[in-house]
């Protein structure tokens, strides 16, 4: 693997941890404010599920 690819993957891996932590913190705040995190989470999952399903169906 060339260095640029390694850096790209490394950056992505860091993004996984940072975005997970930010979402984690935001979810805790939203729950405290009475926002229904689960409804939003359900919708977010559905969008991702549809994306993967389309990929499998179309082979795009």
């Amino acid at each position, binding site marked *: 693997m060339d*260095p640029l690819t390694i850096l790209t993957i490394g950056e992505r*891996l860091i993004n996984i941890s940072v975005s997970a932590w930010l979402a984690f913190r935001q979810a805790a705040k939203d729950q405290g404010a009475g926002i229904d995190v689960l409804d939003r989470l359900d919708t977010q999952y559905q969008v991702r599920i549809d994306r993967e399903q389309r990929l499998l169906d179309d082979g795009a």
Partner: protein
Amino acid sequence: MKQRILYPLYLALIGCVAALCLIGCGLKSKPVLITGNVAIYEALAAIQDTADALREKNLISVEQRKELASKLLPALQTGQQLARLTKAWPADKPAPQELTVLIGQLRGLVQTVVEAWPPSAGRDALAAKLNLAQSAALALVTLFLR
């Protein structure tokens, strides 16, 4: 390379801060489960985005991307099921057994996603870092469900 070296440190700090925050706030099991699921969702979403980015740059083939999709889809569906079950769980009742089962399933499914990751796209690094993050999040959730 520097980013790769720093990554475990970021991860350790995140896990430590999250655990301290949760324990310090005295959150009960349902809120912990919700935030844990949010973190799992974000990790799965980031894996999906990364897989798409690798495919766009032709670093993985269409077949490899489809193989990943076949593993990622059940993980996402289980995460969604977990969210729905959590919503249906009355806060004043003990956690349903099914929740613990789903969490166990999710752990296994995430593992299959990592195993399906192409070695040329950094599977070993992903496996090491993600396992650590998932273990921390799921162990925390399981702990609060007991």
